[in-house]
């Protein structure tokens, strides 16, 4: 399978810091996989994804050793246009990226910069607006809409560029439950379409785990665990020691297995429906 991203012993230390934030990352991310990234704060999650989109090393000063390749080309040697074409980045604070007077101008900004024709720009904006359900916001100011709407606009801006790799860094951390659900709806749509490599840093594991093909745990600047999602969650205690929770259903079913209320061969549930079904089976076996 094609690798979209390859880390080879990447080390990175921010200027004025004594410790390396990344201490030797070796990692391959397969094209069109959905990767969930978790870990305690200050253990390297944001730094890791910043090294993919090129914010590191191009927008920060520091010491860079090893390499990251995106579609075979080193990020270190790539220019801004190449990086913007390949990797889209959504921040947890959407306002960090707004510059235009209306949502539509905001969506068009990147495309105009890349010299697309008018018809193509319109087509891309329509698709991005539809995927993120923001059609009715196009003529509004990006500053006059709710936090959840802003984040959907920020995602639409990235989608409009249609980069093959999309990274979201805690996209739901600043929004309310309905807003969170709408963001996860977008992720579900993108996953279903299967045309993007998606890398999502997120504390909300109950919504993330059911979508992720693989989960990645950052711990002390290293990739501590990188496994298909079910395997990743097979040891909740280990994860808890590293400051990360499993979905409650998953944690409970693991306990059922440890108590011999269910066979070890059973598929661990990752979502509510799976949790209900598996718990029902355990009740029947009593």
């Amino acid at each position, binding site marked *: 399978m094609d690798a979209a991203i390859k880390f080879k012993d990447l080390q990175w230390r921010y200027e004025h810091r004594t410790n390396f934030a990344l201490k030797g990352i070796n990692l391959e991310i397969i094209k069109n996989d959905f990767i969930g990234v978790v*870990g*305690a*704060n200050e253990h390297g999650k944001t730094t890791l994804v910043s090294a993919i989109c090129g914010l590191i090393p191009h927008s920060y000063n520091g010491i860079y050793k090893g390499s990251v390749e995106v579609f075979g080309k080193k990020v270190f040697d790539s220019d801004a246009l190449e990086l913007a074409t390949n990797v889209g980045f959504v921040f*947890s604070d959407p306002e960090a990226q707004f510059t235009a007077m209306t949502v539509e101008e905001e969506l068009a900004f990147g495309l105009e910069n890349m010299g697309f024709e008018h018809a193509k720009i319109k087509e891309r904006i329509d698709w991005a607006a539809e995927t993120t359900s923001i059609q009715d916001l196009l003529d509004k100011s990006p500053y006059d809409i*709710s*936090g*959840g709407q802003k984040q959907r606009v920020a995602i639409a801006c990235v989608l409009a560029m249609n980069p093959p790799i999309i990274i979201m860094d*805690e996209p739901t*951390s*600043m*929004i*309310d*439950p*309905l*807003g*969170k*659900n709408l963001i996860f709806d977008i992720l579900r749509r993108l996953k279903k379409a299967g045309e993007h490599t998606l890398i999502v840093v997120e*504390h909300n594991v*109950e919504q993330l785990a059911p979508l992720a093909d693989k989960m990645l745990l950052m711990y002390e600047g290293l990739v501590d665990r990188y496994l298909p999602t079910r395997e990743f969650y097979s040891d909740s205690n280990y994860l808890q020691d590293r*400051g*990360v*929770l499993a*979905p*409650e*259903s998953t*944690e*409970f079913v693991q*306990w*059922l297995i440890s108590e011999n*209320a269910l066979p070890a061969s059973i598929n661990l549930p990752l979502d*509510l429906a799976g*949790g*209900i079904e598996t*718990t*029902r089976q*355990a*009740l029947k076996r*009593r």
Partner: protein
Amino acid sequence: MAKLITVDALDYVYPDGTPALFDINLEIAEEEFIAFIGQNGSGKTTLSKCLNGLLRPTQGSIIVDDLDTRQRGIIKQLVTKVGYVFQNPDHQLFNRTVWAEIAYGPNNIGLSQSEVKERVIEAAQVAGVHEDVFDTHPYFLDKGLRQRVAIASILALRPKTIIVDEPTTGQDVRQSIEVMNFLKRLRDEEGHTIIIITHEMRIVADYAERTVVLGKGRKLLDGPTREVFAQPEILKQTFVEPPQITQVGQALVEEGLPNDVLSVEEMKVAFNRK
């Protein structure tokens, strides 16, 4: 426990005509730990601002410790009764040193310099803000510590009731537990009433004994958290879902599981009882 706050038939309409709260009735007692939950726009923050007198009722009344918040000129008294900690500590911190930040409130209500000093030292100690950072600019502290400075600056006014807006946003699991345990200590050991505004239902289940659910400006539910989470249909009106493990129990009530477990640990006990 003695009553601290009585909200009676409160309506609030913003000056631009937007109605935000309708007929809210609420009694808050000493040493309670309460969560306000509900969709954004449901009125949680507006209600909190009414409780500490930042907003005056359009209709109805709020009595805080015998003070009617509709009276003019009582804000200096009110801030010593109900404190409000902003969601983002950076929206609240504006002084150049941690000391100045914590001393701001006590200075503002006209305390003497010796009293101010005493208050700052006391508040910093309770909030776990070490004197080593008193001369530091708040922006050079990590987020957890900035939030504790924000809380200390409220504590320095010695309000009985402390409202904390989204105490765990952006924090990881350990940091969240740390800030929540700190708030619990303020209640258990210092006798404060704590009100949190949050979207994190696991936090509500683990810490709040009472939960008030708001939806479109109305109070939808108010009671022990366990009883509130046992009513998923009403919660849905304001886009709130109980914790996942609570929902597992609710889906399997016919098979004999309870509809009101609040944690995986409680679910283990319930399963073993079956």
